[in-house]
């Protein structure tokens, strides 16, 4: 297979080499400029309508040895356009108006009158600072007769004929014309350019850069400017609502492109992330502890993206359809995000310095939907009265001591009365006092703090015509709301380019380093959580004297204090004390180094060798000091009393515990590629690339538990985990001992080719790509591993057709049509038995588990994507639309299907399942108001995506279990939701539901009497409709941005009550949800409440209430994400400073909802408001300052 492919590539390659026709091609002027930008790196700025509908002839491919000026002259002058030099390799295009004025002048001057004159002067900006490199030319003479200002802004212009005026121009400034009087000194003051400049769009696939006109695929682009618009540290927040089809979940830190393609086993749904041409390395370790290392949970797109300094990002291109992404092969099934970092330009040195500062208050604890103290005590009383909790003072007779866990203070008072140690009056007084206590203010003051983040960014860039550089560094410090937590990170980025050997060889070098360090302390989160360490509403952190309160958790106070008196360590827990006693520290170092050599073989044919080396080193030190509750509890529990001597026997060495996790990953990529860009005759341009690449990813990781750790001497004690020790309760136990070592190596090999044919100057474009991927997969044979993936696309630039050209209101129209096959390689299964090895801690033997049996019926999962896109613009390009419709069919989904356990496997992977999905995307850019002093630009995105399982074997579950299921079901989307039909409570306070005939069933009717027909379909749980609406307003130097995001059409369950005691004796924490206070208590309550009562509560009753349609609410919302205001400091004010420019931006984020469909006032993104982590984020205030020197 490989040989054949190689031969094919070789033949194609040689065939193109033989082509030597350099023909002229007719194309739009914009496209010609794109080609020039691509070849020379020359940048242009011009008014959007300036070159509209202009056609030109351009010889392709461009010959880089020719000066760019020559090419520009050839294509621009015939259109009466001038190009004004701004900086090296940067031009402004303006209309040449001299002809109209020349004619009358010529009429007047029948007699040539030689008028040799030399004009001198100085060009400055509004602050009087000299403008270096400004273009000065006599009106009507063209730039050939012009001059350029020197380093002091001065110029000398020799006039050869009569001239009325002199034109001055400078990038970013208004071109200015000054009439020529008698004097020979003309000084000019240029003012800031206020017209919108539009840059040529080039899309990057990571393998090549292509003008957008010549690509058939569906792309979404965010530029550096777009990214800078949102000041958040998180890149995902920056992308939210910006690109149609891209859905961002900030809470889960994930990003998805065009929904889900698969429900297969072990198939990731996150897109491939490519930075500077190479995929970003994942933390690729199946050890659960290590996967936590990547913040945001493993290799989700969000976590990977945040390893890059947002300030360094030049552009983010999202490859959405098959034609755009199939060049990336098997990894691209979920779309590709291509990031280009900033490169230096051919400019004098520029230093940029920026500061971002943000602050947000802790979320309002009163928004937590929890009961107040009095309500909670009332619930405890009822639970106790109903006999769910027994008196902890009563020892179980087989236990050697009373090992009951203590109950809360309120319950203790109630039991005291039962025991006769307190009177009912004393109890009621105590409970009344407890009911007055609210610990929220102590939690806020003592466990929470203001979240503050600071970012400092410094970059340095510039270059000459032979080399460029971009160097940047960034320091970010983040202090979250939870006390005892902080994070900092540091970035260094450098990109260098060099032209060697007469510009025949381009050398690029890039280095990207990121260090991050985070310190975690769980005390604050634990105190607000529902674990045994969670605080009840009346449990304070400090007493009136300011002493930290500590409580016993494992055993009752009497028992614990008895042990303490025998020499055990203090056994109480205080969240405040623990703030300084646990320290979970993670430090990561990530380095990427890349190098590329681009050699021109002949004109139009380049050979590129490039490589990337990546290293990730992550070290985690989880320290629980000896005084932390966790360690004291471990030590105490492992201490027994010798029955003979009465001495304490320590089972666990005295000291802290230290968990060490080290991860060391490295990856190299090596790629060689041939790029061909040639013309055939004067009707066809061929853009061809072919290449091969190899990749190896390795990691090595280890984790260890250390006991008896002393942080002062940094030493530990050796333990033998195979030797059991006796616990305080008399059982035996062994120390949990983690000592894992892992190493993994994976390789991939790919061949790929891509061809783009552009007919008749781009009126018709056809593209195709083909790729073979081969991976390391244990147990799979070569023909199972290597499969070709391909795509094809067509594009019709309809505006170039004569019959469309005449439609004046239509400024642009093109139609794209693509189809392709993507795929996912099965991992971990194959035609041979695969085993996983490890070590048995007790026997020290090497052991293995059979992970998968030999299964010959395994191959790739395939996704066939069809995309139809239309791009058009109207109203002088002020309103531009991109519309895409797509359809994806996934077949051979690898799924764990039930298998007969008699063969030894209850589940076996087969690829046979199928699903389909489709969607619609609309992107709209509008320039609503366009004026010199003020403007309004708007960006609106709308996306729709849905999916459906089409495999007939996934029959709908016929039992009422369907209510809780998420297993794929034919005819339903993957995220379906069913609910019980709620029929209120019965006279006993228990759930009732309607069956399919409308008959009311009470909770005593078993689930086996119900079928799925008795349920009602509620809808999907992810929003099928979503998007964003961004507005930018400008008035002179002030800007105002408003960002709105929305999601609609999904449903979700409103959490009401969580853990009712459905069996007795009840053990564990009672939930604190506020709905519990609404529970049924006595007959008659059912008239006004739907929350089941505690008495005779059963699993069915609670489950049916929780999963009823009553608690299903709409997830639709419109959210005001951000308002930002900016001010560009007028140059006048900077006159006496060394600053070239300065701007200030202030933003407010997380402004809350503008609209929700549900009537309960619930924010659908943050429904589970019983716990702090799910509270909507509070308003965050950002201030950022940017300056350049």
């Amino acid at each position, binding site marked *: 297979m*490989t040989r054949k*492919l*190689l031969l094919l590539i*070789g033949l194609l*390659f*040689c065939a193109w*080499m033989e082509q030597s026709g350099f023909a002229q091609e007719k194309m739009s002027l914009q496209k010609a400029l794109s080609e020039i930008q691509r070849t020379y790196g020359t940048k242009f700025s011009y008014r959007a309508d300036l070159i509209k509908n202009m056609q030109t002839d351009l*010889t392709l491919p461009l010959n880089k040895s020719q000066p760019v000026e020559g090419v520009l002259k050839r294509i621009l002058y015939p259109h009466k356009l001038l190009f004004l030099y701004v900086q090296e390799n940067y031009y402004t295009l303006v209309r040449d108006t001299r002809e109209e004025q020349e004619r009358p002048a010529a009429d007047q001057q029948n007699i040539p009158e030689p008028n040799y004159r030399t004009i001198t002067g100085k060009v400055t900006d509004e602050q009087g600072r000299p403008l270096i490199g400004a273009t000065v030319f006599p009106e009507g003479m063209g730039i050939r007769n012009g001059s350029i200002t020197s380093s002091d802004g001065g110029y000398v212009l020799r006039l050869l004929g009569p001239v009325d005026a002199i034109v001055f121009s400078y990038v970013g400034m208004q071109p200015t014309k000054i009439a020529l009087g008698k004097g020979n000194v003309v000084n000019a003051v240029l003012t800031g350019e206020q017209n919108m400049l539009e840059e040529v769009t080039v899309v990057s696939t990571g393998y090549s850069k292509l003008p957008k006109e010549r690509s058939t695929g569906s792309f979404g682009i965010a530029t550096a400017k777009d990214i800078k618009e949102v000041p958040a540290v998180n890149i995902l927040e920056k992308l939210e609502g910006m690109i149609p089809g891209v859905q961002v979940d900030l809470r889960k830190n994930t990003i998805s492109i065009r929904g889900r393609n698969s429900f297969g086993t072990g198939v990731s749904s996150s897109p491939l992330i490519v930075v500077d041409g190479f995929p970003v390395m994942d933390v690729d370790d199946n050890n659960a502890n290590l996967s936590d290392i990547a913040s945001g949970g493993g290799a989700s797109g969000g976590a990977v993206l945040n390893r890059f300094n947002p300030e360094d990002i030049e552009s983010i291109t999202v490859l959405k359809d098959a034609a755009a992404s199939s060049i990336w092969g098997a990894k691209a099934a979920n779309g590709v995000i291509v990031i280009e970092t900033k490169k230096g330009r051919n400019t004098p040195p520029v230093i940029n310095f920026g500061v971002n500062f943000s602050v947000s208050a802790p979320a309002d604890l009163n928004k937590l939907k929890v009961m107040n103290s009095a309500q909670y005590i009332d619930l405890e009383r009822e639970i106790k009265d109903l006999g769910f909790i027994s008196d902890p003072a009563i020892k*179980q007779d*087989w*236990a050697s001591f009373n090992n009951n866990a203590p109950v809360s203070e309120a319950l203790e008072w109630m039991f005291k009365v039962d025991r006769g140690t307190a009177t009912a009056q004393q109890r009621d007084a105590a409970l009344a006092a407890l009911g007055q206590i609210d610990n929220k203010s102590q939690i806020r003051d003592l466990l929470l703090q203001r979240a503050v983040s600071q970012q400092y960014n410094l970059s340095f860039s510039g270059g000459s015509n032979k080399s460029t550089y971009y160097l940047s560094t960034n320091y970010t410090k983040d202090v979250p709301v939870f006390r005892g937590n902080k994070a900092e990170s540091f970035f260094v980025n450098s990109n260098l380019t060099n032209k060697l050997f007469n510009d025949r060889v381009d050398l690029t070098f890039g280095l990207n380093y990121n260090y991050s360090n985070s310190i975690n302390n769980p005390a604050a989160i634990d105190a607000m959580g529902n674990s045994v360490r969670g605080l009840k509403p009346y449990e304070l952190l400090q007493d009136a004297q300011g002493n930290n309160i500590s409580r016993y958790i494992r055993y009752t106070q009497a028992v614990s204090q008895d042990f303490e008196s025998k020499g055990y360590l203090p056994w109480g827990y205080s969240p405040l004390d623990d703030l300084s006693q646990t320290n979970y520290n993670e430090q990561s170092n990530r380095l990427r180094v890349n190098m590329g050599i681009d050699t021109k*073989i*002949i*004109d139009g044919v380049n*050979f590129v060798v490039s490589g990337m080396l990546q290293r990730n080193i992550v070290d985690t030190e989880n320290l629980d000091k000896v005084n932390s509750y966790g360690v004291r509890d471990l030590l105490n529990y492992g201490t027994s009393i010798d029955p003979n001597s009465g001495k304490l026997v320590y089972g666990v060495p005295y000291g802290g515990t230290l968990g060490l996790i080290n991860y060391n990953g490295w990856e190299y990529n090596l790629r*060689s590629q041939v790029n061909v860009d040639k013309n055939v005759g004067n009707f066809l341009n061929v853009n061809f690339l*072919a290449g*091969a690449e190899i990749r190896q990813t390795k990691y090595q990781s280890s984790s260890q538990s250390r006991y008896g750790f002393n942080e002062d001497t940094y030493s530990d004690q050796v333990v033998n985990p195979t030797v*059991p*020790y*006796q616990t305080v309760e*008399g*059982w*035996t136990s062994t120390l949990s001992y983690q000592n894992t070592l*892992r190493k993994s*190596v*994976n*390789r*991939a*090999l790919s*061949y790929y080719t891509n061809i783009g044919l552009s007919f008749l100057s781009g009126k018709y474009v056809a593209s195709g790509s083909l790729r073979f991927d081969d991976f*390391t997969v*244990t147990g799979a044979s*070569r023909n199972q*591993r290597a499969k070709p993936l391909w795509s094809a696309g067509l594009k019709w630039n309809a505006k170039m057709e004569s019959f469309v050209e005449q439609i004046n209101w239509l400024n642009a129209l093109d139609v794209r049509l693509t189809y392709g096959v993507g795929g996912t390689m099965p991992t*971990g299964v194959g035609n041979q*038995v*695969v*085993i*996983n*090895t*490890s070590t*048995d801690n007790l*026997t020290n*033997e090497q*052991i*293995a588990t*059979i992970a998968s*049996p*030999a*299964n010959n019926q395994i191959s790739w999962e395939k996704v066939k994507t069809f995309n139809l896109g239309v791009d058009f613009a109207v109203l002088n390009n002020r309103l531009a639309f991109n519309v895409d419709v797509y359809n994806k069919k996934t077949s051979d989904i690898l799924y764990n299907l039930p298998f007969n*356990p*008699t*063969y*030894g496997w*209850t589940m*076996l992977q087969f690829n046979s399942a199928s699903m389909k999905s489709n969607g619609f995307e609309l992107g709209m850019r509008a320039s609503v108001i366009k004026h010199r002093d003020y403007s309004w630009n708007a960006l609106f995105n709308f996306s729709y995506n849905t999916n459906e399982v089409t495999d007939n074997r996934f029959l709908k579950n016929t039992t009422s279990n369907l209510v809780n299921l998420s297993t794929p079901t034919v005819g339903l989307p993957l995220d379906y939701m069913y609910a019980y039909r709620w029929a209120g409570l019965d006279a006993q306070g228990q759930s009732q539901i309607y069956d399919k005939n409308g008959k009311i069933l009470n909770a005593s009717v078993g689930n086996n009497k119900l079928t799925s027909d008795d349920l009602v379909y509620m809808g999907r749980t992810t929003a099928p409709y979503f998007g964003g609406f961004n507005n930018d307003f400008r008035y002179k130097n002030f800007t105002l941005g408003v960002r709105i995001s929305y999601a609609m059409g999904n449903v979700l369950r409103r959490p009401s009550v969580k853990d009712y005691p459905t*069996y*007795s*004796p009840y053990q564990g924490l009672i939930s604190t949800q506020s709905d519990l206070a609404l529970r049924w208590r006595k007959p008659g309550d059912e008239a006004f409440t739907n929350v089941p009562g505690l008495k005779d509560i059963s699993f069915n009753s609670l489950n049916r209430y929780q999963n009823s349609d009553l608690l299903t609410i709409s997830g639709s919302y419109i959210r005001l994400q951000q308002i930002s205001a900016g001010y560009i400091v007028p140059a006048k004010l900077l006159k006496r400073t060394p600053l070239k420019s300065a701007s200030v931006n202030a933003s407010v984020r997380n402004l809350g909802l503008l609209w929700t469909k549900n009537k309960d006032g619930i924010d659908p993104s943050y429904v589970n408001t019983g716990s702090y982590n799910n509270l909507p984020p509070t308003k965050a205030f950002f201030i950022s300052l940017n300056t350049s020197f």
Partner: protein
Amino acid sequence: MEDFKISDKMKNLRYKTWTCLLLAVIGSSCRKYVEVDQYSNRTLKYTSDFQYVINNRNNFEPSYILPTVTSDDIATTGTAQQNAWNSEYKAAYVWAAGFYGDTQTDIGWNNFYKTIYTCNEVIFSVMSSENGTKVQKDQIYAEALVNRAFAYLMLVNQYGEIYDPAKATTQIGVPLLTTPDLYQKLNRASLSDVYGQIVKDVEQAIPLLPNTGNNNGHAGKVSAYALLSRCYLYMRNFALAGDYADKALALNSSLNNLTTYVGNMGKFPLRLNDPEVILSRLSAGQFRAQLNPELINLFQAGDLRLELFTGTGVQGIPGRVYIRPNFNEGYIYTGLNVPEMMLNRAEVYARAGDIPKTLDLLNKLRQSRFTAVTYQDLSISNPADLLPAVINERRRELMATGLRWFDMRRLNLDAALAKPVVRTFLGQDYTLNPGSNRYLYPIAPAVLNLNPEIQQSPR
């Protein structure tokens, strides 16, 4: 552009050649590039890979839980406790026609067939593995045979008919898989075929095994003998059952003296260090329930098995509960051990009417089960009392391990000992008559639905 110089053209040609060459080199050398061996994710290639599989106790230790539930060791009272049970425990306790819903799994069935699959993979290909000596391969092969035989013996005594030497060729057994083929037919083999395979496998393994394994998770000759002893006892071939018990005891006859652990249960040995264990097996999970008062009454005062291994007030369960798992990493031991071999041997002597030899063995065991103060020798004069005495000792010694269920089954064929079992559950009475089809476990519908050729157990 048009005026290319000759030398430029030459240069171009050279570049072309180099480029083509470079591409070819990069492309063709990589055929084997991706086929790199993984560190912990491997194929079964070397003999050591098979050794790792055999070393993994998790592949062989998991066994059953339901025989404890269905046996008369348990007699639950208290509606709350009974209601809290899993549905399959509820059904098994009353010997219902079916134990499982359509989608429920039968953990006992699954565990043993998983073991059988693993053993089949080893047996199928270990002899052709690389880098191993004949001795190593033989031993791995033999261990797999013993582990497979153990699984079949336990399966066939749950789902198969009660072995009757006269009818075994027509009695229903279990599907007999001896290769790792995932698509073979699953018809139930006859009892004689299944037992035949067990005996054949263990006999084939014995000469290839060391006397004892590296630890009691590994099979040695001693475990093979013990397994055959249990097997022949269930087959009512008492002579051989006794012979193999002797052979096993010759290699290991250690007993734990329980007096050592009074007030000192923290020192009670875990299974790998327990000298009594001959082949370690663990229950499929925990089952805490009230022990049958009839069983409790069988214990004499001072019997440390009652004192140390049972407790009251456990999780609110009324009556006495078997708490030995608390000292055994939470599991019930269901494997082969020394006391069982002594009791097998004793039963065979008892059946032969040999009073001194029977009492000698029983007393030897009992001595290690009582404090010196309370210990008294058993004395029996009537040969007819011998067998009941041995059976009662079995009930005490093997309490709550599920082995009682297999004894209840086989004793159906001893007219004197076969009697109906009666129990009350959630207010209803249930009776299990001798010879009832309810002595066979039903096969889970999920298993039958996937392969209808498996026959449901007669009900």
